[in-house]
């Protein structure tokens, strides 16, 4: 067994996910199965292999270098963006109080 109940609780805490008791046990078992299966990658010797984060090579990508830092107009307007917020206080997003005193 790779994954304990404590592992599940630790990961849920890192990911900000409230889980029910039933979910905790289900995910423990399922993550355990999946990671057990993923262990097959250790059959491969990858010491001399460079990790691949991106499939495109620089010559395929015109923007491999950074663009000029210019101000350009944005298609979306602030009112429309704020209208999607659960608790807007234009021009701000409001969140529960984070400072005690």
């Amino acid at each position, binding site marked *: 067994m790779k*994954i304990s109940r404590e592992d599940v609780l630790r990961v849920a805490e890192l990911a900000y996910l*409230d889980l029910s008791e039933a979910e905790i046990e289900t995910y423990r078992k399922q*993550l355990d199965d999946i990671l057990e299966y993923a262990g097959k990658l250790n*059959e491969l010797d990858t010491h001399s292999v460079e990790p*691949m984060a991106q499939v*495109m090579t620089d010559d*395929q*990508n015109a923007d491999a270098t950074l663009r000029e830092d210019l101000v350009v107009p944005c298609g*979306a307007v602030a009112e429309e963006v704020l209208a999607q917020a659960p608790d807007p206080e234009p021009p701000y997003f409001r*969140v529960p109080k984070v400072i005690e005193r």
Partner: protein
Amino acid sequence: MTANWTIEGVREAVAAKKVSARELAGEFYKRIEARNTELNAFLTLSPERAYAQAERVDAMVAAGKPLPPLAGVPVAIKDVISTRGIRTTCGSKILEKYVPPYDATAVERLEKAGAVILGKTNCDEFAMGSSNENSAYGPVRNPEATDHVPGGSSGGSAAAVAAGLAVAALGTDTGGSIRQPGAFCGVPAMMGSYGRVSRYGLIAFASSLDRIGPFARNVKDVASVLQIISGRDPQDSTSTTAPVPDYRAETEKPVKGLRIGIPTEYFGAGMDDGVRKKIEAGIELFKKLGCKLLDIHMPHTDYAIATYYIIATAEASSNLARYDGVRYGLRVEGDSLLSMYRKTRGAGFGAEVKRRIMLGTYVLSAGYYDDYYLKGQKVRALIAQDFQDAFTKVDAIVTPTSPVPAFRLGERTNDPLQMYLADIYTVTGSLAGVPGISIPCGKVCGKLPVGLQIFGRPFGEARVLQLAHAFERAGGADL
């Protein structure tokens, strides 16, 4: 009216004033009304925007102006692609009421080319799934066999095109989510190379893998839509400046003498016998068309599922951190900011999305990063190398799209690992960034479509489309 409209058919009929774009949109809304209760392919319809666009096309016809390539063509858009003013849920409760303030580049380009956007199609939540059963709005049914899944995650787009509820549709593919539902519903479905189509406005699942691509009723129409949505977009730094060929014209080029690689690793255990027979018949058909068949080896194929589910979930756990109840979507109040985050995400995400966020968070966490995420990135390089090596010997690679035909609703929902393993033939090309298409290759059990997959070199979409078109013209769909 014609049951099976194609892009060319629509253009000709609209140009000759046999039908107006407005009448055609109305006809498709009638079809949707008749079938959608059963199929659940559409989540949101956008008649106001569709009719306004149709009237613009009709005005061009009336004024005798030259018509753009998709003039009046009714299309459907997967609900993970942003549409300004049209609700975009990603198949999730967390975005149930979300209305994007901007259009994805692919949507903007389709409309500029004259397409009429009918509405948004159902999909697995945040495109995570292979059966469409992970949608918070209920599963889509396969129009070819309604007690079966349409495949996923772009199940709604595949079903809409297969059932004649749209002439073409956009889906997204991260590990097979265009090609596999295309195979299950019996329609051609393509993902271009990574970087071919702008991802601007595609709500991110796994950014190094996500691609937008078309479903249509035939390969030429797939080519037409791909051509419109391809090309450089300054809003997506990973979209390339590589020139966009005339894909539709390219489909006509001869395929005689092309070398097709058949990777042994894609024909191992676990494949349905009926599917195997159809794919073998499909390979024979390429031989009859004058292609040279070569057995090849892609030795890291068996490691692709593990690699994919590490990399995709790692990226997803990061991308989905944005759903925190602050700027958009659901909020569930808590007694502190952190408790609000936890409650919102716990209530807003479905089981599969939570499972993937958990897995992705785990493989990126301190102590496990090197063993899983870094290891996965290294094996990804080996899988990409398999493709590079193969393409020194062959012009294209032919495989099954899926080891099995569409399964029954509910048949595979209890074991996520078994569901993941069904993606075995599609995730490889996703990791390598190469273009791939699934095309119909006969049916099994008298009704369930089989998909044949063709991979090409990076930015070799034209070659893939040539082979697919030749296959289709030679009767591949009826094998």
